[in-house]
C-alpha cells in the first residue's frame, strides 16, 4: 500500500508554497513514498519511554540583555529586495 497519495503530495506542496506540475506530483508521490517507507523502519523500535532529542546540548532559554541598538540602514535592507518603492519592499497584490 502506498504511504502517500498524489492528492496528499499536492496538499503538502501547497503548504510548502511550491508550485508543482502534474508530472512533478507523480514523481514526488513515487519518491516520497519510497523515502517514507524506508523511514518507517523506525517503527521497529519501542520508544514509548524515550524522551525526544531536539538539540544535543543542555542549553535552554538563552536570553541576552535587552539593549537598544541602531537598526540597519534602509538602503542596506532594500539592497537585496527584488522590488521596492518609496523606501518600502513591494509585493504583488495580497487581496483581490
Amino acid at each position: 500500500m502506498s504511504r502517500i497519495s498524489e492528492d496528499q503530495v499536492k496538499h503538502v506542496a501547497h503548504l510548502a508554497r511550491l508550485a508543482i506540475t502534474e508530472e512533478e506530483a507523480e514523481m514526488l508521490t513515487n519518491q516520497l513514498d519510497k523515502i517514507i517507507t524506508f523511514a518507517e523502519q523506525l517503527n521497529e523500535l519501542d520508544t514509548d519511554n524515550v524522551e525526544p532529542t531536539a538539540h544535543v546540548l543542555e542549553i535552554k532559554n538563552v536570553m541576552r540583555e535587552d539593549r537598544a541598538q541602531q537598526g540597519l540602514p534602509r538602503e542596506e535592507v532594500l539592497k537585496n529586495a527584488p522590488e521596492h518603492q518609496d523606501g518600502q519592499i513591494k509585493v504583488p497584490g495580497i487581496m483581490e
Partner: protein
Amino acid sequence: MSLFEHKISELHELLHKRDLSVSDLVDESFKRIGEVEGKVQAFLTLDEENARAAAKALDDKAIQSAPVNKLYGLPIGIKDNIVTKGLRTTAASKILEKFDPIYDATVIQKLKHVETVTIGKLNMDEFAMGSSNENSGFQKTLNPWNLDRVPGGSSGGSAASVAAGEVLFSLGSDTGGSIRQPASYCGVVGMKPTYGLVSRFGLIAFASSLDQIGPITRNVEDNAFLLNAIAGYDEMDSTSAKVDIPDYVGGLTGDIKGLRIAVPKEYLGEGVSEEVRNSVLDALKVLEKEGATWEEVSLPHSKYALATYYLLSSSEASANLARFDGVRYGYRTPNAENLIEMYKKTRAEGFGEEVKRRIMLGTFALSSGYYDAYYKKAQKVRTLIKQDFEKVFEQYDVIVGPTAPTPAFKIGENTRDPLTMYANDILTIPVNLAGVPAISVPCGFDKGLPLGLQIIGRHFDERTVYKVAHAFEQATEFHKQQPQL
C-alpha cells in the same frame, strides 16, 4: 613545489622573516586557479581584486611590525553558504544567485581578525543538500584525483580547492558528513567540531540542530590552527556553547600511549567496501604500534541513523527555507498575479530538485496528523543513537572507523535514486545526530582514489581527536601524496 605544500607554521616563519610576502601567497593561489580551475571548477565566485588589495595592505603593514597572527596572510576559500559582506553568497542556489550579504558571518569576522585573505566562494550542493556537488544550481565540481569522479559533498568545492592547491585551506559546513565525506574523497583533512563549538551566525541554515562549520586543510596541525581561530562562544548564536577553547595545536604531542579505541562493528559491516575495511584495519595497526589499544564495540542503533537524519534534517530544512519567498531578498518570479502565486512560483523556479524534495518530505513529516509518527519518532530515535555514543565513551577515548563506505563514486552514478545517494552518508550521519566531534584523515588509496579514516571523540574533546589524527598522520605518508592535475 607549491607554496601550499608548506605547513602553516613554516609559512608563518617565512612571512615573519620576510622571505615571503602575502602577495606571493595570493599570487600562488590565482596562478594555480588559472591552471586548474577550468578542470576542477571549485569556485562559484572569485574575489581577486579585493584579495590582492588585502595582500598589499598586509604586506605594507608588515614593514612596520612583524606579523604575529599565525594565520596572517594565508589564502582561504569559503564555502558559499557562509555569508561574506559585499561578496556574493549563493549557497549554490539560483534563488540566491545575486545575493549580496550586508554582514559577515561570525567565522568571517574571526578570520578577518587573524588576517587571512579570502580568495573566493566555493561550490557546494544547493543549500548543502547532497553528497556529490551534483546538486549545485550552477556547476559540478570534479575530484582533483580523477576528473570522472565527484569530489563528495556538500562541501565539495571546499575539499577539492584544497586538494588541488588553489587555496591553502578552506571552511566547510557539516550537517550529515558534508565536511568529512568530501575530505575523504579528496584526500584532505576535514573536521566537524562539536555542535555549538563554532558559531553558526551567518551560516545559511539547512538543519539548525545539526549544522556545524569546520576547517578543511592539508594536514592535521593546520586544521587545529584554523579551528582555534574560528571556535568560541558567540552571543549571536543561541546554540553557541559557553566553553573554554583549549590550544588544539599544543595538544598535538604525538603521544597516544594507553589510548582506548572503540571500533563499531556496524562501521565495518555490510555496504563498506573491502578496500575501505582493510585500510581501516591497517590504520588500527598503526595506532596500536603507537601504543593505543582497540576493541570492537557496537553502536546498535546505527542502522536507524539514516532514516532519523532524513526526517529531522528535512523537517528543519522545510522551516529554515521558508524564508526564501521572493520578498526581502533573492530571486522573485516575474510571472505572478498575486502574493501566494508569487511565493509558489518563486520557490518552484528558484529551488533545485533535491531541495524541493526535502522541503516536501519535511513539510509532510511536520504536517498535522503525521508529526508524532515521523518527526517526533525520529527525535526519540535520535536519543537512542546519542545514548549509543555515550555508552561507548564511558569506556573508550575515541571511536574509529571509515569516513565513507567507498572511495569517490563516478559522476552520475548515484543520481537516479535518492536513497542510494543518501547511503553515502551512513557512517558520518550518526556523529551529527549525537553532536560529537569527528575528523577525516587520509588513510589509503583504492585505485588511485583517496580513502579517509574517521576519528570520533567525546563532546568538546577535539583535542583528543586531533592528537590521535596527528599521531596517525605522522606515522604514515598518505597525506603527502598530491593529485596530478
